[in-house]
């Protein structure tokens, strides 16, 4: 079997994202937990995945835009091992990276990979799907994922071909869910059940959350960003409302779509909530004052600039989307 060793939780990203009090509580919670074991998963190209709870493995993506060097490995991807089957939750941003994820799974278990779950339509979470075709899994996602991905497929493929380069782009396919979740759905992996829930429009219009009942682990996909600036492709008011709701939930840990392997509720949500609330307040004031989109992209939310990675890459787009939404209030 794969050797396992204990590693210290990584305080740096947490510290970056949390209040001091919240940080201490979260760090304590993680340090007190025996769960953050490390699986080197040295097979193949050596994609690392940490076991954050028994049978729950999380690979942490880089805080980067896609590039030939990172091969689309810039989001978190997880897998859950039951007594009968394995479920993959997001597949990274290329077939190449997806294959590395598959190798990491095979380094841990020989059980069949029966489900590939996509938390939403974005390429850094779905473009690795093709790597699992040989397992003939059920591809599972929000019932609106196919529409959203379909209408953007041409642009997603073109952009990623440019940014990843030929080598890392090789083998990417658009694979939409074969099992669409309308409201909620339970997947039995043997000894544990995954509860899949569709959410109202927030990060996108096809966000899906996953709860592992055995360990009380909540996978939030890109409903939770930490360190990496949030990206808005749905509804800023919807997202803030959902954060309120998620913050009242109780889970042993949450896994973000971008950020550390595992975090604690409700602190994990606070930086993201602060960021989205800052944009909302600034944009609403500008609209009230009769100001324009051009004014907004120069000023709104810039108090958050030092709090996030990739702020310069995504913030103006976020403000643009927020303005186009909030001006209809």
């Amino acid at each position, binding site marked *: 079997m794969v050797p396992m060793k204990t590693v210290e939780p990584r305080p740096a990203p947490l510290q970056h994202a949390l209040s001091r009090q919240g940080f201490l509580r979260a760090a304590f919670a993680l340090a007190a937990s025996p769960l953050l074991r490390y699986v080197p998963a040295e097979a193949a190209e050596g994609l690392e995945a940490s076991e954050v709870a028994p049978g729950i493995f999380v690979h942490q993506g880089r805080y980067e835009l896609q590039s030939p060097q990172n091969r689309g490995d810039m989001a978190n991807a997880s897998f859950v091992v039951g007594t009968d089957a394995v479920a993959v939750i997001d597949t990274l941003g290329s077939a190449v990276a997806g294959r590395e994820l598959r190798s990491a799974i095979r380094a841990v278990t020989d059980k069949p990979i029966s489900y590939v779950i996509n938390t939403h339509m974005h390429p850094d979470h779905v473009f690795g799907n093709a790597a699992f075709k040989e397992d003939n899994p059920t591809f599972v996602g929000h019932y609106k994922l196919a529409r959203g991905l*379909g209408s953007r497929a*041409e642009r997603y493929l073109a952009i990623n071909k440019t940014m990843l380069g030929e080598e890392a782009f090789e083998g990417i396919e658009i694979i939409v869910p074969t099992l669409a979740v309308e409201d909620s759905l339970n997947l039995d992996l043997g000894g544990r059940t995954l509860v899949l829930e569709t959410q109202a429009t927030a990060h996108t219009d096809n966000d899906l959350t996953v709860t592992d009942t055995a360990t009380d682990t909540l996978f939030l996909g890109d409903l939770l960003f930490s360190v990496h600036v949030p990206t808005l492709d749905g509804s800023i008011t919807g997202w803030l409302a959902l954060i309120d709701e998620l913050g009242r939930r109780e889970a042993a840990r949450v896994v973000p779509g971008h950020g550390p392997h595992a975090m604690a509720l409700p602190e994990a949500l606070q930086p993201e909530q602060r960021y989205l609330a800052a944009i909302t307040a600034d944009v609403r004031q500008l609209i009230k004052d009769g100001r324009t989109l051009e004014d907004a992209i120069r000023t709104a939310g810039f108090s958050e600039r030092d709090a996030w990675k990739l702020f310069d890459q995504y913030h103006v*787009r976020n403000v643009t989307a927020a303005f186009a939404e909030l001006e209809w209030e």
Partner: protein
Amino acid sequence: MDANYNEENGAMPFTLKSLTIGGAAALAGLLLLSPVAKADEDVWPTLRQQAFGDRTIQAEDGMVVIEIPGTAEDAALVPLTVRVPPQVTQNLKSLTLFIDKNPDPKVATLAFGPAAGKGGERSFSTRVRIEDFSYVRAVLETEDGTLHMASKFVAAAGGCGAMQAKDPDTESVDLGKTIVKVFPPALEQSPIWSAQVMIKHPNANGMQLDINTANFIPARFVKEMTVKRGGELVFQMESTFSISTNPNFRFTFGRGPDNSLDVAITDTDEARFAAKAGPSGS
């Protein structure tokens, strides 16, 4: 327009027909949809000939100024402003906006009426889709019949194929809802006032795939808008799908005895929408 575009580029509804939702469909063929061949071609000589014939166009003579980001963060929603500086004292006849490399390069043409006003800076702003790295141009015709052009190169890509609607279900709920706002100037005697019109409309360009039907979502966009102040024409605009989803316009008009605005809109399905507003924004 978009049908011509597809033919010209050898685009391929054929491949898409074979797409099945449950079949782990490979849409890789969609890459072929990307605009081809035209990348380095200078289309402006042809465009200008079609629009203005052999008439002289004075470029960058300061009569008209264009403001647009040099790099568009969201190519489906790029803010564009055209200004006519206050030292230009003539009445304005027309304004035509172009994005050279868009499927339909002509974005909009405005024919101004007596209520367009003068005696201060006049401006027109909207938000556009930009399909490829391209020049964006504004050609202004003044009442003496001369043509003046400002242009700027913009790095942006994929704005037309991009689906701008974040949530198509809520976007389609209030289709046609139109809001008009009049912004009285700080000094009410100022001869130039400003206003805004926003229309809830997908402005669909026929280039987005509906994966559930394997067909393209049909084009449907605002093609005409007439703005009147107290019954007098401010401008009449003809527009294309280069205008972003939920079309949004900020513009100036000349102060009159009655500063309420009437706006009438027609889309390509011949649906008509109308709205009005007084200076209080009622």
